[in-house]
Protein backbone atom coordinates (compact mmCIF):
# COMPACT_ATOMS: atom_id res chain seq x y z
CA UNK A 1 0.00 0.00 0.00
CA UNK A 2 1.15 3.48 -0.90
CA UNK A 3 2.30 5.84 1.84
CA UNK A 4 0.01 8.86 2.32
CA UNK A 5 1.52 12.22 3.03
CA UNK A 6 0.20 14.09 6.07
CA UNK A 7 -1.67 16.55 3.88
CA UNK A 8 -3.36 13.73 1.95
CA UNK A 9 -4.37 12.04 5.17
CA UNK A 10 -5.82 15.25 6.52
CA UNK A 11 -7.81 15.69 3.32
CA UNK A 12 -9.06 12.11 3.57
CA UNK A 13 -10.17 12.61 7.18
CA UNK A 14 -11.94 15.83 6.25
CA UNK A 15 -13.71 14.01 3.40
CA UNK A 16 -14.92 11.27 5.72
CA UNK A 17 -16.03 13.79 8.33
CA UNK A 18 -18.03 15.55 5.63
CA UNK A 19 -19.71 12.22 4.88
CA UNK A 20 -20.85 12.07 8.50
CA UNK A 21 -22.26 15.58 8.43
CA UNK A 22 -23.97 14.94 5.10
CA UNK A 23 -25.64 11.78 6.36
CA UNK A 24 -26.81 13.45 9.57
CA UNK A 25 -28.31 16.20 7.40
CA UNK A 26 -30.02 13.54 5.27
CA UNK A 27 -31.45 11.92 8.40
CA UNK A 28 -32.80 15.22 9.66
CA UNK A 29 -34.23 15.92 6.20
CA UNK A 30 -36.06 12.56 6.16
CA UNK A 31 -37.45 13.20 9.64
CA UNK A 32 -38.40 16.69 8.50
CA UNK A 33 -40.34 15.30 5.54
CA UNK A 34 -42.25 12.97 7.86
CA UNK A 35 -42.96 15.81 10.29
CA UNK A 36 -44.00 18.07 7.40
CA UNK A 37 -46.43 15.44 6.08
CA UNK A 38 -47.94 15.11 9.54
CA UNK A 39 -48.26 18.89 9.89
CA UNK A 40 -49.72 19.28 6.38
CA UNK A 41 -52.30 16.57 7.02
CA UNK A 42 -53.30 18.04 10.34
CA UNK A 43 -53.48 21.68 9.24
CA UNK A 44 -55.25 20.87 5.99
CA UNK A 45 -58.00 19.15 7.97
CA UNK A 46 -58.01 21.89 10.58
CA UNK A 47 -58.46 24.63 7.96
CA UNK A 48 -61.18 22.78 6.02
CA UNK A 49 -62.89 21.15 8.96
CA UNK A 50 -62.71 23.53 11.91
CA UNK A 51 -65.47 25.87 10.64
CA UNK A 52 -67.85 22.87 10.60
CA UNK A 53 -67.07 21.77 14.15
CA UNK A 54 -69.93 22.75 16.40
CA UNK A 55 -72.19 21.24 19.03
CA UNK A 56 -74.78 20.74 16.30
CA UNK A 57 -72.23 18.76 14.21
CA UNK A 58 -71.38 16.47 17.12
CA UNK A 59 -75.00 15.84 18.07
CA UNK A 60 -76.65 15.81 14.63
CA UNK A 61 -77.59 12.91 12.38
CA UNK A 62 -76.38 12.43 8.78
CA UNK A 63 -78.35 14.46 6.30
CA UNK A 64 -78.63 15.08 2.58
CA UNK A 65 -77.84 18.71 3.33
CA UNK A 66 -74.15 19.03 4.09
CA UNK A 67 -74.57 21.99 6.43
CA UNK A 68 -77.08 20.16 8.63
CA UNK A 69 -75.29 16.83 8.79
CA UNK A 70 -73.74 15.57 12.00
CA UNK A 71 -71.81 12.61 13.35
CA UNK A 72 -73.83 11.52 16.39
CA UNK A 73 -74.79 8.09 14.99
CA UNK A 74 -71.18 7.47 13.91
CA UNK A 75 -69.80 8.46 17.31
CA UNK A 76 -72.27 6.24 19.17
CA UNK A 77 -71.68 3.41 16.69
CA UNK A 78 -67.91 3.62 17.11
CA UNK A 79 -68.24 3.64 20.92
CA UNK A 80 -70.52 0.58 20.97
CA UNK A 81 -68.37 -1.36 18.49
CA UNK A 82 -65.29 -0.59 20.61
CA UNK A 83 -67.16 -1.88 23.68
CA UNK A 84 -67.74 -5.25 21.99
CA UNK A 85 -64.16 -5.31 20.64
CA UNK A 86 -62.66 -4.65 24.07
CA UNK A 87 -64.99 -7.14 25.79
CA UNK A 88 -63.80 -9.89 23.43
CA UNK A 89 -60.18 -8.98 22.68
CA UNK A 90 -59.02 -8.14 26.22
CA UNK A 91 -59.93 -11.40 28.02
CA UNK A 92 -58.95 -13.56 25.04
CA UNK A 93 -55.70 -11.74 24.35
CA UNK A 94 -54.56 -11.54 27.97
CA UNK A 95 -55.46 -15.19 28.60
CA UNK A 96 -53.60 -16.32 25.48
CA UNK A 97 -50.56 -14.22 26.45
CA UNK A 98 -50.56 -15.64 29.99
CA UNK A 99 -50.86 -19.17 28.64
CA UNK A 100 -47.94 -18.76 26.25
CA UNK A 101 -45.65 -17.17 28.86
CA UNK A 102 -46.54 -19.02 32.07
CA UNK A 103 -48.13 -22.34 31.14
CA UNK A 104 -47.05 -23.51 27.68
CA UNK A 105 -44.32 -26.11 27.59
CA UNK A 106 -41.79 -25.75 24.77
CA UNK A 107 -43.00 -27.91 21.96
CA UNK A 108 -44.69 -27.99 18.61
CA UNK A 109 -47.98 -26.57 19.92
CA UNK A 110 -46.38 -23.48 21.45
CA UNK A 111 -44.30 -22.99 18.28
CA UNK A 112 -47.36 -23.36 16.09
CA UNK A 113 -49.36 -20.80 18.10
CA UNK A 114 -46.43 -18.39 18.07
CA UNK A 115 -45.80 -18.60 14.30
CA UNK A 116 -49.53 -18.31 13.73
CA UNK A 117 -49.77 -15.09 15.75
CA UNK A 118 -46.89 -13.55 13.77
CA UNK A 119 -48.66 -14.51 10.55
CA UNK A 120 -52.02 -13.13 11.71
CA UNK A 121 -50.40 -9.79 12.51
CA UNK A 122 -49.40 -9.56 8.83
CA UNK A 123 -52.79 -10.45 7.34
CA UNK A 124 -54.35 -7.38 5.65
CA UNK A 125 -57.35 -6.01 7.53
CA UNK A 126 -59.67 -6.43 4.55
CA UNK A 127 -59.14 -10.20 4.72
CA UNK A 128 -60.59 -10.09 8.26
CA UNK A 129 -63.53 -8.30 6.68
CA UNK A 130 -64.02 -11.20 4.26
CA UNK A 131 -63.82 -13.66 7.18
CA UNK A 132 -66.49 -11.66 8.96
CA UNK A 133 -68.71 -11.46 5.89
CA UNK A 134 -68.54 -15.19 5.25
CA UNK A 135 -68.59 -16.41 8.84
CA UNK A 136 -70.27 -13.90 11.17
CA UNK A 137 -72.69 -12.22 8.79
CA UNK A 138 -73.72 -15.21 6.67
CA UNK A 139 -73.06 -18.45 8.59
CA UNK A 140 -73.67 -17.29 12.16
CA UNK A 141 -76.53 -15.07 11.03
CA UNK A 142 -75.33 -12.04 12.97
CA UNK A 143 -76.21 -9.84 10.01
CA UNK A 144 -74.77 -6.39 9.49
CA UNK A 145 -74.75 -5.70 13.19
CA UNK A 146 -72.65 -4.08 15.91
CA UNK A 147 -71.86 -7.56 17.26
CA UNK A 148 -70.41 -8.69 13.90
CA UNK A 149 -68.26 -5.55 13.58
CA UNK A 150 -67.05 -5.71 17.18
CA UNK A 151 -66.06 -9.38 16.86
CA UNK A 152 -64.21 -8.72 13.59
CA UNK A 153 -62.17 -5.87 15.03
CA UNK A 154 -61.49 -7.96 18.15
CA UNK A 155 -59.91 -10.70 16.02
CA UNK A 156 -57.96 -8.02 14.17
CA UNK A 157 -56.34 -6.58 17.31
CA UNK A 158 -55.93 -9.89 19.12
CA UNK A 159 -52.25 -10.26 18.04
CA UNK A 160 -51.51 -6.74 19.35
CA UNK A 161 -52.97 -7.54 22.78
CA UNK A 162 -51.24 -10.94 22.97
CA UNK A 163 -47.82 -9.56 22.03
CA UNK A 164 -48.14 -6.67 24.53
CA UNK A 165 -49.20 -9.08 27.29
CA UNK A 166 -46.26 -11.38 26.61
CA UNK A 167 -43.76 -8.53 26.56
CA UNK A 168 -45.12 -7.14 29.83
CA UNK A 169 -44.97 -10.55 31.51
CA UNK A 170 -41.45 -11.20 30.26
CA UNK A 171 -40.08 -8.18 32.16
CA UNK A 172 -41.11 -9.69 35.53
CA UNK A 173 -38.05 -11.27 37.14
CA UNK A 174 -38.01 -14.99 37.89
CA UNK A 175 -37.51 -14.33 41.60
CA UNK A 176 -41.11 -13.12 41.95
CA UNK A 177 -42.41 -16.47 40.67
CA UNK A 178 -40.05 -18.46 42.87
CA UNK A 179 -41.04 -16.40 45.91
CA UNK A 180 -44.73 -17.12 45.34
CA UNK A 181 -44.12 -20.84 44.79
CA UNK A 182 -41.93 -20.99 47.91
CA UNK A 183 -44.90 -19.78 49.94
CA UNK A 184 -47.01 -22.63 48.57
CA UNK A 185 -48.95 -20.73 45.91
CA UNK A 186 -50.40 -22.71 43.02
CA UNK A 187 -49.61 -21.59 39.51
CA UNK A 188 -52.89 -19.70 39.14
CA UNK A 189 -52.47 -18.03 42.54
CA UNK A 190 -49.02 -16.91 41.43
CA UNK A 191 -50.37 -15.62 38.09
CA UNK A 192 -53.44 -13.86 39.47
CA UNK A 193 -51.73 -12.47 42.56
CA UNK A 194 -48.40 -11.39 41.07
CA UNK A 195 -47.93 -11.73 37.32
CA UNK A 196 -51.17 -10.01 36.26
CA UNK A 197 -50.99 -7.05 38.67
CA UNK A 198 -47.32 -6.33 37.90
CA UNK A 199 -47.79 -6.56 34.16
CA UNK A 200 -51.08 -4.64 34.05
CA UNK A 201 -49.65 -1.22 33.00
CA UNK A 202 -47.83 -2.84 30.06
CA UNK A 203 -50.93 -4.81 29.10
CA UNK A 204 -53.05 -1.67 29.34
CA UNK A 205 -50.67 0.12 26.96
CA UNK A 206 -51.11 -2.69 24.43
CA UNK A 207 -54.90 -2.65 24.79
CA UNK A 208 -55.08 1.10 24.19
CA UNK A 209 -52.86 0.86 21.10
CA UNK A 210 -55.00 -2.00 19.80
CA UNK A 211 -58.25 -0.11 20.35
CA UNK A 212 -56.80 3.04 18.74
CA UNK A 213 -56.09 0.90 15.68
CA UNK A 214 -59.55 -0.69 15.73
CA UNK A 215 -61.41 2.63 15.96
CA UNK A 216 -59.75 3.86 12.76
CA UNK A 217 -60.23 0.65 10.75
CA UNK A 218 -62.51 1.13 7.79
CA UNK A 219 -62.02 -1.72 5.34
CA UNK A 220 -63.23 -4.69 7.43
CA UNK A 221 -66.30 -2.78 8.59
CA UNK A 222 -67.22 -1.82 5.01
CA UNK A 223 -66.91 -5.45 3.95
CA UNK A 224 -69.43 -6.47 6.60
CA UNK A 225 -71.74 -3.95 4.99
CA UNK A 226 -72.14 -1.19 7.55
CA UNK A 227 -74.67 1.36 6.37
CA UNK A 228 -73.65 4.93 5.91
CA UNK A 229 -77.00 6.61 6.37
CA UNK A 230 -78.22 5.90 9.89
CA UNK A 231 -80.62 8.49 11.21
CA UNK A 232 -81.38 6.80 14.53
CA UNK A 233 -79.41 5.47 17.43
CA UNK A 234 -79.22 1.80 18.41
CA UNK A 235 -81.49 0.81 21.32
CA UNK A 236 -80.08 1.98 24.64
CA UNK A 237 -78.18 -0.66 26.64
CA UNK A 238 -79.87 0.46 29.87
CA UNK A 239 -83.67 0.27 30.21
CA UNK A 240 -86.02 1.64 32.89
CA UNK A 241 -87.70 -1.75 33.48
CA UNK A 242 -86.36 -5.00 34.89
CA UNK A 243 -83.75 -6.40 34.06
CA UNK A 244 -82.40 -2.89 33.36
CA UNK A 245 -79.92 -4.15 30.80
CA UNK A 246 -80.80 -4.75 27.19
CA UNK A 247 -78.63 -6.34 24.54
CA UNK A 248 -80.84 -5.36 21.61
CA UNK A 249 -78.15 -2.90 20.47
CA UNK A 250 -75.81 -5.77 19.62
CA UNK A 251 -78.05 -6.76 16.73
CA UNK A 252 -78.79 -3.31 15.40
CA UNK A 253 -77.42 -1.80 12.17
CA UNK A 254 -74.87 0.93 12.65
CA UNK A 255 -72.30 3.25 11.15
CA UNK A 256 -68.88 4.18 12.53
CA UNK A 257 -66.67 7.26 12.24
CA UNK A 258 -64.32 6.01 9.47
CA UNK A 259 -67.26 4.91 7.31
CA UNK A 260 -68.94 8.29 7.72
CA UNK A 261 -65.69 9.98 6.64
CA UNK A 262 -65.35 7.63 3.67
CA UNK A 263 -68.91 8.38 2.62
CA UNK A 264 -68.43 12.15 2.79
CA UNK A 265 -65.02 12.03 1.08
CA UNK A 266 -66.39 10.05 -1.88
CA UNK A 267 -69.06 12.64 -2.65
CA UNK A 268 -68.24 15.21 -5.31
CA UNK A 269 -69.54 18.31 -3.48
CA UNK A 270 -66.99 20.41 -1.59
CA UNK A 271 -69.46 21.02 1.25
CA UNK A 272 -69.36 17.31 2.12
CA UNK A 273 -65.57 17.36 1.94
CA UNK A 274 -65.62 19.96 4.72
CA UNK A 275 -67.76 17.57 6.76
CA UNK A 276 -65.25 14.78 6.05
CA UNK A 277 -62.44 17.04 7.27
CA UNK A 278 -64.30 17.92 10.45
CA UNK A 279 -65.13 14.26 11.18
CA UNK A 280 -61.55 13.29 10.28
CA UNK A 281 -60.29 15.86 12.74
CA UNK A 282 -62.45 14.34 15.49
CA UNK A 283 -61.22 10.83 14.61
CA UNK A 284 -57.55 11.85 14.44
CA UNK A 285 -57.82 13.64 17.78
CA UNK A 286 -59.37 10.51 19.31
CA UNK A 287 -56.63 8.19 18.00
CA UNK A 288 -53.88 10.69 18.86
CA UNK A 289 -55.24 10.96 22.40
CA UNK A 290 -55.33 7.16 22.74
CA UNK A 291 -51.84 6.66 21.28
CA UNK A 292 -50.50 9.58 23.30
CA UNK A 293 -51.93 8.05 26.47
CA UNK A 294 -50.26 4.73 25.61
CA UNK A 295 -46.88 6.40 24.93
CA UNK A 296 -47.14 8.35 28.18
CA UNK A 297 -48.08 5.22 30.15
CA UNK A 298 -45.12 3.34 28.72
CA UNK A 299 -42.78 6.22 29.48
CA UNK A 300 -43.98 6.41 33.10
CA UNK A 301 -43.73 2.67 33.39
CA UNK A 302 -40.13 2.66 32.19
CA UNK A 303 -39.25 5.42 34.66
CA UNK A 304 -40.87 3.61 37.60
CA UNK A 305 -39.71 0.08 36.90
CA UNK A 306 -37.43 -1.00 39.74
CA UNK A 307 -36.92 -4.67 40.31
Amino acid at each position, binding site marked *: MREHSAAELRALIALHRRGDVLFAALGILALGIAAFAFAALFFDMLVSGAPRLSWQFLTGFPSRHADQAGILSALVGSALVMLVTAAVAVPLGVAAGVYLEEYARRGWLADLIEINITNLAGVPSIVYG*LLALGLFVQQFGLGQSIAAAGLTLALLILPVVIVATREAIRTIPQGIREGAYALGATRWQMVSGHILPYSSPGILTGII*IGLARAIGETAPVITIGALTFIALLPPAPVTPEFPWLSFEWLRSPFTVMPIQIFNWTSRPQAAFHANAAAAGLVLVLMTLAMNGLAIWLRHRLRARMRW
Partner: protein
Amino acid sequence: MRFWRERLIEAALLAAALATIATTLGIVYILVKESVVFFQHVPLWQFLTDRQWTPLFADAHFGIVVLLSGTLVSSAIALAIAIPMGTVIAMYLAEFAPFRVREVAKPLLELLGGIPTIVYGYFALLFVTPLLQWFYPALPGFNLLSAGIVMGIMIVPYVSSLAEDAMRAVPMSLREGSYAMGATRFQTAAKIVVPAAFSGIASAYILGISRAVGETMILAVAAGMQPNLTLNPLEPAATITAYIVQVALGDLPHGSIGYQTIFAAGLTLLLFTLACNVLGHVLRRKYREAY
Protein backbone atom coordinates in the same frame (compact mmCIF):
# COMPACT_ATOMS: atom_id res chain seq x y z
CA MET B 1 -60.25 -29.85 44.49
CA ARG B 2 -57.43 -27.37 44.09
CA PHE B 3 -55.84 -29.60 41.47
CA TRP B 4 -58.97 -29.67 39.34
CA ARG B 5 -59.44 -25.93 39.62
CA GLU B 6 -55.89 -25.44 38.39
CA ARG B 7 -56.42 -27.82 35.48
CA LEU B 8 -59.66 -26.08 34.55
CA ILE B 9 -57.98 -22.66 34.48
CA GLU B 10 -55.11 -23.99 32.41
CA ALA B 11 -57.58 -25.48 29.92
CA ALA B 12 -59.44 -22.15 29.68
CA LEU B 13 -56.19 -20.27 29.01
CA LEU B 14 -55.19 -22.83 26.38
CA ALA B 15 -58.58 -22.39 24.73
CA ALA B 16 -57.92 -18.64 24.47
CA ALA B 17 -54.53 -19.30 22.86
CA LEU B 18 -56.16 -21.73 20.43
CA ALA B 19 -58.62 -19.00 19.40
CA THR B 20 -55.80 -17.53 17.29
CA ILE B 21 -55.44 -20.84 15.45
CA ALA B 22 -59.21 -20.91 14.99
CA THR B 23 -59.04 -17.43 13.41
CA THR B 24 -56.51 -18.63 10.84
CA LEU B 25 -58.52 -21.75 10.12
CA GLY B 26 -61.65 -19.61 9.80
CA ILE B 27 -59.98 -17.29 7.28
CA VAL B 28 -58.65 -20.16 5.19
CA TYR B 29 -61.97 -22.05 5.38
CA ILE B 30 -64.11 -19.10 4.25
CA LEU B 31 -61.77 -17.94 1.46
CA VAL B 32 -61.23 -21.45 0.10
CA LYS B 33 -64.91 -22.41 0.37
CA GLU B 34 -66.15 -19.43 -1.64
CA SER B 35 -63.20 -19.52 -4.05
CA VAL B 36 -63.87 -23.17 -4.91
CA VAL B 37 -67.32 -22.19 -6.12
CA PHE B 38 -65.78 -19.30 -8.06
CA PHE B 39 -63.20 -21.53 -9.76
CA GLN B 40 -65.94 -23.93 -10.82
CA HIS B 41 -67.34 -21.08 -12.92
CA VAL B 42 -64.05 -19.55 -13.97
CA PRO B 43 -61.12 -21.80 -14.89
CA LEU B 44 -57.90 -20.98 -13.07
CA TRP B 45 -55.93 -20.34 -16.26
CA GLN B 46 -58.50 -17.79 -17.36
CA PHE B 47 -58.26 -16.10 -13.95
CA LEU B 48 -54.49 -15.85 -14.36
CA THR B 49 -54.24 -14.97 -18.05
CA ASP B 50 -57.32 -12.95 -19.02
CA ARG B 51 -56.45 -9.30 -19.56
CA GLN B 52 -59.84 -7.88 -18.66
CA TRP B 53 -61.63 -7.65 -15.30
CA THR B 54 -65.36 -7.07 -15.78
CA PRO B 55 -67.06 -9.51 -13.39
CA LEU B 56 -70.29 -7.54 -13.14
CA PHE B 57 -70.84 -7.00 -16.87
CA ALA B 58 -72.93 -9.24 -19.11
CA ASP B 59 -69.71 -10.14 -20.96
CA ALA B 60 -67.88 -11.13 -17.80
CA HIS B 61 -64.09 -11.39 -17.72
CA PHE B 62 -62.05 -12.41 -14.72
CA GLY B 63 -58.40 -11.47 -15.28
CA ILE B 64 -56.77 -10.88 -11.89
CA VAL B 65 -53.75 -9.39 -13.73
CA VAL B 66 -55.76 -6.19 -14.14
CA LEU B 67 -56.15 -5.74 -10.39
CA LEU B 68 -52.61 -6.95 -9.73
CA SER B 69 -51.23 -4.20 -11.98
CA GLY B 70 -52.86 -1.54 -9.79
CA THR B 71 -51.55 -3.20 -6.64
CA LEU B 72 -48.08 -3.53 -8.16
CA VAL B 73 -47.78 0.10 -9.30
CA SER B 74 -49.12 1.64 -6.10
CA SER B 75 -46.99 -0.63 -3.90
CA ALA B 76 -43.88 0.11 -5.96
CA ILE B 77 -44.38 3.86 -5.51
CA ALA B 78 -45.05 3.47 -1.80
CA LEU B 79 -41.98 1.29 -1.25
CA ALA B 80 -39.77 3.59 -3.34
CA ILE B 81 -40.58 6.20 -0.70
CA ALA B 82 -40.91 4.15 2.48
CA ILE B 83 -37.80 1.96 2.18
CA PRO B 84 -35.15 4.67 1.59
CA MET B 85 -36.81 7.12 4.00
CA GLY B 86 -37.40 4.47 6.65
CA THR B 87 -33.83 3.16 6.39
CA VAL B 88 -32.25 6.62 6.58
CA ILE B 89 -34.42 7.57 9.57
CA ALA B 90 -33.61 4.28 11.31
CA MET B 91 -29.85 4.69 10.72
CA TYR B 92 -29.99 8.30 11.86
CA LEU B 93 -31.97 7.54 15.01
CA ALA B 94 -29.93 4.48 15.93
CA GLU B 95 -26.42 5.81 15.22
CA PHE B 96 -26.41 9.58 14.87
CA ALA B 97 -29.22 11.30 16.70
CA PRO B 98 -28.60 12.92 20.08
CA PHE B 99 -30.74 11.56 22.92
CA ARG B 100 -33.08 14.58 22.87
CA VAL B 101 -33.86 14.29 19.15
CA ARG B 102 -34.67 10.61 19.54
CA GLU B 103 -36.98 11.27 22.49
CA VAL B 104 -39.03 13.62 20.30
CA ALA B 105 -38.80 11.80 16.96
CA LYS B 106 -39.80 8.32 18.12
CA PRO B 107 -43.19 9.23 19.62
CA LEU B 108 -43.85 11.49 16.61
CA LEU B 109 -43.26 8.60 14.21
CA GLU B 110 -45.44 6.37 16.35
CA LEU B 111 -48.28 8.89 16.20
CA LEU B 112 -47.83 9.13 12.42
CA GLY B 113 -48.24 5.35 12.25
CA GLY B 114 -51.40 5.53 14.34
CA ILE B 115 -53.37 7.82 12.02
CA PRO B 116 -56.36 5.99 10.51
CA THR B 117 -55.85 5.10 6.84
CA ILE B 118 -59.16 6.68 5.83
CA VAL B 119 -57.71 10.01 6.96
CA TYR B 120 -54.65 9.36 4.80
CA GLY B 121 -57.07 8.65 1.95
CA TYR B 122 -58.74 12.03 2.47
CA PHE B 123 -55.27 13.63 2.51
CA ALA B 124 -54.26 11.91 -0.75
CA LEU B 125 -57.43 12.82 -2.61
CA LEU B 126 -57.93 16.39 -1.39
CA PHE B 127 -54.42 17.61 -0.60
CA VAL B 128 -51.72 15.65 -2.43
CA THR B 129 -53.59 15.24 -5.74
CA PRO B 130 -54.38 18.98 -6.06
CA LEU B 131 -50.74 19.68 -5.13
CA LEU B 132 -49.51 17.34 -7.89
CA GLN B 133 -51.99 18.83 -10.36
CA TRP B 134 -50.39 22.19 -9.68
CA PHE B 135 -47.13 20.78 -11.10
CA TYR B 136 -48.77 18.62 -13.77
CA PRO B 137 -52.24 19.92 -14.65
CA ALA B 138 -53.22 16.94 -16.84
CA LEU B 139 -53.21 14.59 -13.85
CA PRO B 140 -56.66 13.03 -13.33
CA GLY B 141 -58.43 13.50 -9.98
CA PHE B 142 -58.01 9.79 -9.21
CA ASN B 143 -54.50 8.43 -9.76
CA LEU B 144 -52.12 5.80 -8.45
CA LEU B 145 -49.29 8.31 -7.94
CA SER B 146 -50.79 10.36 -5.14
CA ALA B 147 -52.24 7.27 -3.42
CA GLY B 148 -48.82 5.61 -3.66
CA ILE B 149 -46.98 8.62 -2.25
CA VAL B 150 -49.30 8.91 0.74
CA MET B 151 -49.14 5.16 1.28
CA GLY B 152 -45.35 5.47 1.35
CA ILE B 153 -45.52 8.16 4.04
CA MET B 154 -47.89 5.92 6.00
CA ILE B 155 -45.46 2.96 5.86
CA VAL B 156 -42.31 4.93 6.86
CA PRO B 157 -42.93 4.55 10.63
CA TYR B 158 -43.39 0.77 10.37
CA VAL B 159 -40.11 0.35 8.46
CA SER B 160 -38.09 2.82 10.52
CA SER B 161 -39.19 1.53 13.90
CA LEU B 162 -38.46 -2.16 13.15
CA ALA B 163 -35.19 -1.37 11.36
CA GLU B 164 -34.06 0.84 14.24
CA ASP B 165 -34.83 -1.88 16.79
CA ALA B 166 -32.71 -4.29 14.73
CA MET B 167 -29.79 -1.83 14.57
CA ARG B 168 -29.93 -1.10 18.30
CA ALA B 169 -29.72 -4.82 19.02
CA VAL B 170 -26.25 -4.91 17.41
CA PRO B 171 -23.77 -5.17 20.30
CA MET B 172 -21.73 -2.10 21.20
CA SER B 173 -18.43 -4.03 20.94
CA LEU B 174 -18.82 -4.22 17.14
CA ARG B 175 -19.13 -0.44 16.94
CA GLU B 176 -16.23 0.05 19.32
CA GLY B 177 -14.09 -2.24 17.19
CA SER B 178 -14.99 -0.25 14.10
CA TYR B 179 -14.24 3.11 15.75
CA ALA B 180 -10.95 1.74 17.05
CA MET B 181 -9.95 1.01 13.47
CA GLY B 182 -10.49 4.68 12.69
CA ALA B 183 -13.86 4.39 10.94
CA THR B 184 -16.23 7.34 11.00
CA ARG B 185 -19.80 7.18 12.25
CA PHE B 186 -21.21 6.78 8.76
CA GLN B 187 -18.71 4.06 7.85
CA THR B 188 -19.55 2.22 11.05
CA ALA B 189 -23.29 2.54 10.45
CA ALA B 190 -23.17 1.50 6.79
CA LYS B 191 -20.48 -1.16 6.86
CA ILE B 192 -20.81 -2.70 10.34
CA VAL B 193 -24.22 -2.03 11.88
CA VAL B 194 -26.44 -2.43 8.81
CA PRO B 195 -24.91 -5.75 7.68
CA ALA B 196 -25.01 -7.07 11.25
CA ALA B 197 -28.68 -6.11 11.56
CA PHE B 198 -29.54 -7.33 8.06
CA SER B 199 -32.06 -9.99 9.07
CA GLY B 200 -34.05 -7.51 11.16
CA ILE B 201 -33.90 -4.82 8.49
CA ALA B 202 -35.08 -7.32 5.88
CA SER B 203 -38.10 -8.22 8.00
CA ALA B 204 -38.86 -4.51 8.36
CA TYR B 205 -38.90 -4.23 4.55
CA ILE B 206 -41.08 -7.29 4.23
CA LEU B 207 -43.56 -5.88 6.72
CA GLY B 208 -43.57 -2.72 4.60
CA ILE B 209 -44.31 -4.74 1.46
CA SER B 210 -47.20 -6.62 3.04
CA ARG B 211 -48.63 -3.34 4.41
CA ALA B 212 -48.47 -1.79 0.94
CA VAL B 213 -50.09 -4.74 -0.79
CA GLY B 214 -52.86 -5.02 1.81
CA GLU B 215 -53.58 -1.29 2.13
CA THR B 216 -57.16 -0.57 1.20
CA MET B 217 -58.73 2.76 2.05
CA ILE B 218 -56.10 5.13 0.63
CA LEU B 219 -56.46 3.37 -2.73
CA ALA B 220 -60.23 3.08 -2.60
CA VAL B 221 -60.51 6.82 -1.95
CA ALA B 222 -57.71 8.32 -4.03
CA ALA B 223 -56.92 5.91 -6.88
CA GLY B 224 -60.44 5.42 -8.19
CA MET B 225 -62.09 2.03 -8.39
CA GLN B 226 -62.04 1.35 -12.15
CA PRO B 227 -60.16 -1.79 -13.11
CA ASN B 228 -57.41 -0.66 -15.47
CA LEU B 229 -54.53 -2.75 -16.80
CA THR B 230 -51.75 -0.20 -16.65
CA LEU B 231 -48.26 0.40 -15.36
CA ASN B 232 -48.65 4.17 -15.63
CA PRO B 233 -48.85 5.76 -12.16
CA LEU B 234 -50.60 8.84 -13.59
CA GLU B 235 -53.74 6.85 -14.40
CA PRO B 236 -56.56 5.79 -12.12
CA ALA B 237 -56.75 2.05 -11.42
CA ALA B 238 -58.31 -0.41 -8.99
CA THR B 239 -56.24 -2.65 -6.76
CA ILE B 240 -57.30 -6.02 -5.37
CA THR B 241 -58.27 -4.38 -2.10
CA ALA B 242 -60.13 -1.45 -3.69
CA TYR B 243 -62.14 -3.91 -5.78
CA ILE B 244 -63.27 -5.76 -2.65
CA VAL B 245 -64.42 -2.46 -1.14
CA GLN B 246 -66.26 -1.50 -4.32
CA VAL B 247 -68.19 -4.77 -4.40
CA ALA B 248 -68.92 -4.62 -0.66
CA LEU B 249 -70.39 -1.13 -1.07
CA GLY B 250 -72.91 -2.39 -3.59
CA ASP B 251 -75.65 -4.82 -2.70
CA LEU B 252 -74.60 -8.09 -4.28
CA PRO B 253 -76.78 -11.07 -3.43
CA HIS B 254 -75.10 -13.79 -1.39
CA GLY B 255 -74.01 -16.65 -3.65
CA SER B 256 -73.79 -14.68 -6.90
CA ILE B 257 -70.60 -14.86 -8.96
CA GLY B 258 -69.83 -11.21 -8.17
CA TYR B 259 -70.02 -12.02 -4.47
CA GLN B 260 -67.60 -14.91 -4.92
CA THR B 261 -65.06 -12.85 -6.88
CA ILE B 262 -64.14 -10.89 -3.75
CA PHE B 263 -63.24 -14.10 -1.95
CA ALA B 264 -61.06 -15.22 -4.87
CA ALA B 265 -59.42 -11.77 -4.80
CA GLY B 266 -59.01 -12.05 -1.03
CA LEU B 267 -57.41 -15.49 -1.39
CA THR B 268 -54.89 -14.05 -3.88
CA LEU B 269 -54.09 -11.33 -1.35
CA LEU B 270 -53.73 -13.80 1.53
CA LEU B 271 -51.43 -16.07 -0.48
CA PHE B 272 -49.27 -13.08 -1.36
CA THR B 273 -48.89 -11.88 2.22
CA LEU B 274 -48.31 -15.45 3.36
CA ALA B 275 -45.48 -15.74 0.82
CA CYS B 276 -44.04 -12.49 2.24
CA ASN B 277 -44.18 -13.88 5.77
CA VAL B 278 -42.49 -17.13 4.77
CA LEU B 279 -39.79 -15.21 2.91
CA GLY B 280 -39.23 -13.06 5.99
CA HIS B 281 -38.95 -16.17 8.14
CA VAL B 282 -36.41 -17.75 5.78
CA LEU B 283 -34.34 -14.54 5.63
CA ARG B 284 -34.34 -14.27 9.40
CA ARG B 285 -33.19 -17.88 9.75
CA LYS B 286 -30.54 -17.60 7.09
CA TYR B 287 -28.96 -14.26 7.92
CA ARG B 288 -29.47 -14.17 11.65
CA GLU B 289 -26.25 -13.13 13.37
CA ALA B 290 -26.11 -14.51 16.87
CA TYR B 291 -24.01 -12.68 19.41
